[in-house]
């Protein structure tokens, strides 16, 4: 499972937990995910262990 770490609040989470960018013009095509903890949006580049 790929995990991401939010650069704003440090929360580590999995893709399924990310809050979506639903409602955005790019839908999910923008390649960004938003942190479930603080909502900060950043490009989905997984954390390398």
């Amino acid at each position: 499972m790929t995990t991401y770490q939010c650069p704003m609040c440090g929360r580590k989470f999995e893709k399924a937990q990310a809050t979506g960018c639903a409602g955005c013009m790019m839908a999910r095509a923008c390649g960004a995910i938003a942190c479930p903890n603080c909502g900060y949006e950043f490009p989905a580049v997984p954390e390398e262990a």
Partner: protein
Amino acid sequence: MKGPRKRKFRHRKQFPELNHLRIALVGQPNVGKSVIFNNWTGLGAIVSNYPGTTVEILEGTVYLSYRDVYSPRWHPGIKDWQPTEEDEFQQDDRPFRRDRPGRRQHGRGIGKHFRKWALKDFDETIEGLQLDIVDLPGSYTIVSPSTEDEKVTLRYLQQDTPDVIVNVVDATNLPRNLLLTIALLEFNIPMVVCLNQVDLARRMGIEIDEKKLEMLLGVPVIPTVAIHGTNLKLLLRTAAKSGAYKGVRPNPRRFLFPNGIEAKLRRLEQRLSQMQLCPMNLPLRILSQQLLEEYAQCAACIESSLESEEALNLVKTIRTEIEKEFDEDIVLVLGEKRKQYAIYLTEQVQQGKGKRVPLTEKISAILTDRVFGLPIALLVLIGSLLIMFAAGAIFDATVGEFWEAFINPTAQYLITTYVPSVIVQVILYYGLVLGIQAWLFIAVPFVATFYIILSILEDTGYMARIAFLLDAFMHRLGLHGRAIIPLLTGMGCNVPAVLGTRILSTRRERLIAGFLVVLVPCSAQLAVILGTVGLYASIFFAFLILAIVFGIIIGLGALLQHTLPGASHGLVMEIPPLRTPRLKPTLKKTWLRFREFVYIALPLIIIGGAVLGLLLYFPTPDFSYLYMVSLWAAPLVVGWLGLPAETAAAFVYGILRKELTVELLVILANGPINTFMTPRQMFVFALITTIYIPCIATIAVLFREYRWKYTLILATSTVILAFFLGGVANFIMLGLGFP
């Protein structure tokens, strides 16, 4: 029925009387109390001055389910330990009070595994035991407090007696920290020692045996790394348990003075216990030491007592006895003994002496420092913007010149000679040539540079530190978490930030947060607007816009936060370690952000350019549609804002994406912007663009979240606000003599 509901109820029943506990974080300065406090309470803390002082204490709330507090098994690891003959120091392990003497249950069998599993993770939002956390000011000592902070800490422990003390201890400097721990053990308050910064200690070559320290002190010791959030949940649970199981807590092993001092101290203690003292809830042992050390405040308290004469005489006698025996001032004698004990404890539990602090830790400490942190962050911000301006200037001088000198004339020649229709000529020239030119000038130098810098800030871990600093800064301004979360997240993109307001509980809170979010310029907008203004008008103006925008946000946040209720489950931060960014992920991040500018912004600007060209040339170039619109908008745009009339079109098109306004401006200028607009005009234009109507994607999501009424109100009010401020700025600058 065997649902979790029933279980919860069962655990609730273990504490029929228990509704809430107050936990005080006590420790020396800079040990990490505030980091722990923030982690537990999130951003929703309340700052207040301790009554009658200027000292700030922070209070916050967190909930723990009863299931997490209930565990028949006491904190593991505290075994009975007796000092051996050759041990230098003896300890006092008389119990304070035992309601249920010595009853300890041990988990067994499958139940044990269940509890282990159940305690693994707890849900902070579940209704349960309310824990009020207090962050007390940093104090080196409470036996003879000298600073205002220390006095407040002591007074708090006496008068507002918390249910549990969490003594935060810096593992890198155990002897000094244990001095405070020893004194805290004298209070009849359940205590947990948090051995913090073990990461730093380990890297300095210090290993601490926390189990042994636990035995020596007689209270639970939890090793933690506060900045990474390690073990903080366990610490909270242990603290809650210590408060909940008053009867079965282990006994703190208190320090006994050696060499006959102890007997004398006991005598004094005995005498004091017979007196009717003022209702100060100070442990007699600490009071005796204070009296012996002639600590002024308590002498006054004793004097008010009836038998004070005799007691004070006893104090005097004992003091002279001890001073004679050691031939030294009593303050030094007692201090020395305490220090020796602290060093003794340290030697028992610590392996390895502190070596050097690793460089990254030093840097990290400076970056998040209370004093230097924010100025450094500000410098980094300014530096990043300057780099952006420089990149813009270089790009302009090279690619820009080349485009102006070769591509543009060549394309113009090709279009006019080979394309017969005027309409197609205009569309091609304005859309493709000028459109792409505008996009190139704006998107590439400013946005790309900005995104590279942003990715680097994120990947080094500095971003999280800025968030941490900003949070602390907001606290000092009296703003609590809910007003700042949108500020931080809105910077990335407004759309998910608006969606993020869903976590707020009431509709009113969501509306307020939504309004704040919309005012925050997203990073793309900011890069374009600041870059253009900085490069073509003045760098000072760029910073001014930044300052105004954040002034508005902070001001609004402060105004609106009064309407938000206090306690919240705020943001939990875990600051990642500093590291050097790696090239590939950083570039990938930059590209993922930037590609939106290729796939979406570029087509939009080409279309926009073409439409603008048509509006400029038809029906006739001298009396075009754009001219008609401009005439209509002139009172506002020219009269009030002092801008060229054509910019009205840019404002309208900017609804699609805000940075399009600036790109359209480049097309309108049909050359360098600074020949088309003066610095004053650019400033006003940029200010309005920053504030006015959110982009269409944000409007769409606002509509989804709040329905049309509030969306309309929000859009209109931002537009009015923007045009109002723009006009004010225009007249102020005219008044100041800007052309």
